């Protein structure tokens, strides 16, 4: 019995790393706005796509996720809702790369994430912050637009049967809704050039 108790306690108290997925609900980013024919692209480096983040969470455990790979679908959704042609560029957006990709503008995102948990015995995040720094360059490589967005998401234990990473998804949804609002504005920078 003592041995069993020791084994159970080791399992319970071990500092496990738990995978979460931070891709938001893409349905929430549907725009129903006029689709522009301007061809655009976006660039994520292979190193960013493969970047795995591990952060301390509740109960002495940690959470792991891939911020760029898992936020890319949200970027794609917002861009596809506004532009007819969207290309993922395979190289940093120089004048030559934009010409070869036949795109007029390229978006370059940077993501920073923060995870918090108030759980003593539970590991899922109770608060999550997604910060998106977006900039767009034109065919000459000049930055024609840039803006920062920040989304915060919270969750309680009652949300976790739905999704252990729900706080992160809510944060990402909030940040990308703000980005979508700007991109879908009738005054969007692309119309002014």
């Amino acid at each position, binding site marked *: 019995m003592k041995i069993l108790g020791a084994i159970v*306690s080791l399992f319970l108290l071990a500092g496990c790393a738990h995978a979460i997925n931070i891709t938001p609900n893409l349905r929430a980013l549907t725009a129903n706005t006029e689709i522009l024919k301007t061809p655009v692209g976006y660039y994520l480096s292979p190193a960013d796509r493969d970047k795995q983040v591990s952060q301390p969470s509740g109960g002495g455990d940690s959470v792991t996720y891939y911020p760029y790979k898992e936020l890319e679908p949200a970027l794609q959704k917002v861009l596809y809702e506004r532009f007819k042609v969207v290309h993922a560029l395979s190289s940093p957006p120089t004048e030559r790369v934009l010409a070869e990709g036949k795109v007029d503008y390229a978006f370059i995102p940077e993501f920073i994430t923060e995870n918090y948990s108030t759980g003593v015995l539970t*590991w899922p995040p109770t608060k999550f912050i997604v910060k998106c720094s977006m900039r767009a360059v034109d065919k000459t490589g000049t930055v024609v637009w840039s803006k920062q967005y920040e989304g915060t998401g919270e969750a309680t234990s009652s949300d976790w*049967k739905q999704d252990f990473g729900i706080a992160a998804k809510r944060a990402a949804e909030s940040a990308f809704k703000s980005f979508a609002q700007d991109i879908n504005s009738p005054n969007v920078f692309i119309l002014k050039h």
Partner: protein
Amino acid sequence: MSANFKCVLVATFLILNTACTMLAPKYNTSFENIAPLREEHLKKVAVGDVKPDPSVKQDGTESLSLRAAPFKSPYGSFSAYLKEALSQELEDAHLLDPKSPIEITAYILKNEISVPMDTGSAALTARFVVSHGTEKLFDKVKDASTTWPSSFFGATALSAGQINYPIVYQKLLQSLFSDIDFIGALKDKGAHK
């Protein structure tokens, strides 16, 4: 080990291993799946019935569990999950029109998920039928499977299973959308590039 600490451990063990119902994450479009569809001139389609194939018992495709925890669809059933996946991807490809005379129906033949200690896996098989009135334009069975690293620890294994389950739907639709006979069935032969 004090008696109080033992009680806390036992209580924690019981709480963590209670067979709580878990939900699959909401479906998100794979933009890699729909990129080829957006480049073709295809007719818009409606999504019709999606249900378990009459040849299989309903429990065979609708009753899933992650170890002892019942695993449910956030849309009420896994047939509804596939219908949402199909509708969402076609909508994001700008090919969904509920009034279209061309209709896609699907019959689920297999829907499985397993989260043992070493490798988790999910498998999905469905028959897709594209019809225009009484004319059958496409009728094929498609299947997909996916695997991921699992864990002895229940919390880690369950969250990994939950995260990875939607991927098998994305793979199934990738198989459908990349089928030249499916593309041929939807081809708008009167369209000009």
